[in-house]
């Protein structure tokens, strides 16, 4: 009796482990290339003066964090990143929603317009940056398209690429919004078209005004998609780097337009680079910021549902 029991529980155990066996290849690869580096970064961030070549460090402690948090370049990067996040995420979502609603209203040529609005998504960031340079950059020969427009309305030229901070930040935000828009429009148009038209008919029979239909019916129906876009938008904007390079080149610190990811990169490979410990500490700080914001986002969306 006892034997039989232990036999069947043994079989049971095997079938329990079977699942893990199937998962093993994925676990090994993810472990080596994702989990281990993450842990490693965490470890580096506490090791002072870690050196790649000699694999040595002076000591452990909070010094790396203290250094990074007192580095004016890092503080500037945090400030830039937050400004970009706070301005571009809500603005791009609202504008994308507006365009999607208009797109879903038109019947003729809808697919043509959808293609046009999606084109920026498949265009290379640097190519877009080049176009923005042509539009905004002030050179010895021309003030650029936008300045010509400003002049036409009686304003004076502004150097958007090498000029004052607010001008650079303005271009940066316009650029970021422009570049993240296509994906949001794509998601929102499909979300809008998945709303059953009967809801709109029902609302019309009940004499609901268009604006009320929008905020009482359309918005709640597509709110899961909006939350998805806001959360991924926050994460994406906090991790911005290549967009800044496209506009202002690799020396972002001297342009005053560095971001947190840019700071991490500079600490690793930049001209003043070679400080993996500081880079790790900055990366962990970024991780904490993104985690906090995402958790807050999720809590808000949960309490709404």
């Amino acid at each position, binding site marked *: 009796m006892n034997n039989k029991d232990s036999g069947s529980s043994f079989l049971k155990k095997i079938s329990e482990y079977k699942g893990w066996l199937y998962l093993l290849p994925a676990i090994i690869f993810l472990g080596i290339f994702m989990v281990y580096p993450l842990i490693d970064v965490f470890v580096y961030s506490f090791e002072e003066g870690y050196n790649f070549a000699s694999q040595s460090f002076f000591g452990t402690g909070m010094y790396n964090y203290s250094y990074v948090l007192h580095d004016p370049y890092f503080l500037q990067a945090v400030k830039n990143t937050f400004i970009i996040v706070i301005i571009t995420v809500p603005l791009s979502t609202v504008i994308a929603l507006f365009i999607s609603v208009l797109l879903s209203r038109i019947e003729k040529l809808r697919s043509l317009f959808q293609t046009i609005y999606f084109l920026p998504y498949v265009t290379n960031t640097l190519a877009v940056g080049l176009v923005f340079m042509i539009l905004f950059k002030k050179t010895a020969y021309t003030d650029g398209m936008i300045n010509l427009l400003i002049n036409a309305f009686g304003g004076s030229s502004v150097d958007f690429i090498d000029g004052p901070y607010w001008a650079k930040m303005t271009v940066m935000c316009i650029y970021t919004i422009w570049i993240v828009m296509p994906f949001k429009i794509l998601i929102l148009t499909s979300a809008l078209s998945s709303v059953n038209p009967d*809801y709109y*008919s029902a609302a*019309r*029979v*009940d*004499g609901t*005004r268009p604006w009320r239909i929008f905020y009482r*019916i359309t918005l709640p*129906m597509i709110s899961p998609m909006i939350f998805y876009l806001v959360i991924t938008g926050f994460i994406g904007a906090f991790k911005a780097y290549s967009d800044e390079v496209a506009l202002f080149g690799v020396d972002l610190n001297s342009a005053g337009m560095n971001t947190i990811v840019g700071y991490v990169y500079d600490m690793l490979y930049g001209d003043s680079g070679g400080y993996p410990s500081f880079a790790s500490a900055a990366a962990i700080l970024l991780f904490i910021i993104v985690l906090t914001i995402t958790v807050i986002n999720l809590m808000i969306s949960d309490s709404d549902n």
Partner: protein
Amino acid sequence: MEVVLEHLTKVFPSRDKKNPADVYAVNDFDFTIPDGKLIGLLGPSGCGKSTTLNLICGLLQPTQGRILFGENDVTNLPPEARGVGLVFQNYALYPHLTVRQNIMFPLQNLRGEEKLTKEVMNAKAEEAAKLVQIDMLMDRKPKELSGGQQQRVAIARALVKRPQVLLLDEPLSNLDARLRLQTREEIKRIQTETGITTIFVTHDQEEAMSISDLIVVMKDGILQQIGRPQEVYDEPVNMFVAKFLGTPQINMFDGRVSGGMLYLGETPVMKTTAPDKEVHVGIRPEGFVLAGVDAPSTGTAGAVATADDGTKPLECALKAVEVSGRDVSIVSTNPASQGVNIRSIMGSDRNLNIAGETVSFRLKPHKVYLFDKETEDRIYEQ
């Protein structure tokens, strides 16, 4: 409120490039729906019944014709100004709102002088919910309700503004068979209690027959017949109506009228006053009277006898006998039949013991209909 449709026509432009002819979803409808009645719009799918409903509620604009509610021409009024309530086939309850919020939604749209206080809105919602017996579910979300309960919420939402006309699009099609029976009685009860003119769309003839005061039979956008259910069943104006109403379906035969006698194949089955010609013959399943069973094994043959008026029973090959408890259906075949099988229903109060190879039937004349071969219109006795 009486609803008058005057030469109502709705044309949709063709989307098919190979066939550019316009689609007449509703073609020259001209009839009056009396006040305070329950009306069933009946027809196969694609016959324009939902279009008719949408025209009446104002979601669609007619191409031609007028719609009047009583004396008022509402043809050009938007839905909300017509005083209609509409229940959608899929109920269209707002999933993010509770039952109470769903029912109150139409009231919250009121503006200006019509604007109601929260208390009044709440009271009205409660009243509508009580009418459809869902007042204990007010704070649930639609997805927490069963199909039948969702249906009731949808009806309550349509009724909360006290519409003059209540419209139901396929109200029972999303429910299971048992709930369907219950709900159709419920709809009848609500209609009787409120006295609101109610129009519902269905493709299920049984549903329409069972609760409607009047049924309107449609086909391809054209009105076929309008009348009380029993009237339409007993006196169909054409072959389509005869075939569409009734389960089991009417049995169709190729027949011939010659010298005041109706022949099915070579058998003279019934005297008639119709003029001589080839005809379609429709016989209701309950229109057969068992005249005899030829059972060679027992040797009681010879049931086929000529009656005094010269008619003979119709002899059919027996295929099967189905006993349902309430009645017995005899499935048989005959060369003159247009369908594969002839289905006849006998009451089961007599202990029928049918076995053999052929059965013969006499016909009940008022259950036999003659239709023109060309137009498929009814040929009436003269």
